[in-house]
């Protein structure tokens, strides 16, 4: 994180007064984190980018309802987790409905070496996560991603998911159990 909390609060205040420039700085600051969580949950880079856009549009629209007592990153994660959870629920029972990755991405923009490297890193990560978590329920995947992959604190996970501690722990236990079984089989 490059910005300190004071700077973030100042940008939020400016954004509240309809200043898109200030909000643009927040987008630049947080878009990688939002995209990262969305990619780990959906395992689909195009969908992750769409969700990232939707997260920031919702954040802009609902900014007056943002509670300053909660970290801005936590609030963004909450919106991301909600959108991804809906996406996972929608596609959990119908994996055939998951759209194929657009190949046009590379054609639309002139790819730089950095872009290609990013794509390869993302692709490798997605393959590994998919291999481990493909049979998990949406709740288990969400908890496993937040706790084990993102390394978040239990209290923050409670705020993001709105689940009780008991539910979080039981979902995490089942997710870890399933992933260990997958590892032993590999």
């Amino acid at each position, binding site marked *: 994180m490059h910005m300190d909390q004071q700077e973030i609060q100042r940008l939020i205040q400016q954004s509240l007064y309809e200043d898109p420039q200030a909000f643009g700085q927040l987008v630049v600051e947080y878009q990688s984190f939002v995209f*990262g969580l969305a990619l780990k949950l959906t395992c689909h880079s195009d969908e992750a980018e769409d969700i*990232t856009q939707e997260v*920031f549009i919702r954040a802009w629209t609902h900014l007056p309802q943002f509670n300053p007592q909660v970290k801005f990153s936590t609030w963004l994660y909450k919106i991301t987790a909600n959108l991804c959870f809906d996406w996972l629920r929608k596609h959990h029972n119908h994996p055939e409905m998951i759209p194929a990755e657009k190949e046009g991405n590379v054609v639309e923009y002139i790819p730089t070496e950095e872009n290609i490297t990013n794509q390869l890193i993302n692709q490798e990560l997605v393959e590994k996560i998919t291999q481990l978590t493909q049979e998990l329920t949406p709740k288990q995947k969400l908890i496993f991603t937040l706790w084990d*992959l993102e390394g978040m604190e239990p209290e923050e996970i409670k705020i993001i998911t709105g689940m009780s501690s008991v539910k979080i722990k039981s979902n995490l236990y089942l997710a870890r159990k399933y992933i260990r079984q997958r590892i032993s089989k590999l």
Partner: protein
Amino acid sequence: MKDTNQTYDQILNDLRKVQPIPSHPAELTRQIMGKINVLPQRKKAKNSKLKLLRTWAQIAAILVVGILVYEMIKPHKKLNFSSIPFPEAESTQYTEAHSFPVKEKIKQYIIWQEIQTEKKKYRKELISVFQTSNPKSLMP
């Protein structure tokens, strides 16, 4: 089991180290800001004075309803009718002060009639005197 746990931790560590980045971050930012700029302006926060007024109106409404409910359910004081004396004896009793004797009334009526006839006589006399002294005044 130990091997599985070690492998699990190793895989998790590897996954944690990787921070995914959008393939075209600048383009993603541009798209987000493009969509935000097209959005209509957010609704401004409602006037705090209006909110205060609304709160007071709500409190007043609750009080009025409370008073109405209280008036409906409060126990009324029972009247003890036996303690109030009934004025039966007074109203039926005939007293001289409240009486209205008929004879007196007839006497008064006769006197009044006599006075009236006297007045008429006096008026006729007066007219006849006036006519004799100035006969032209009555002519049209």
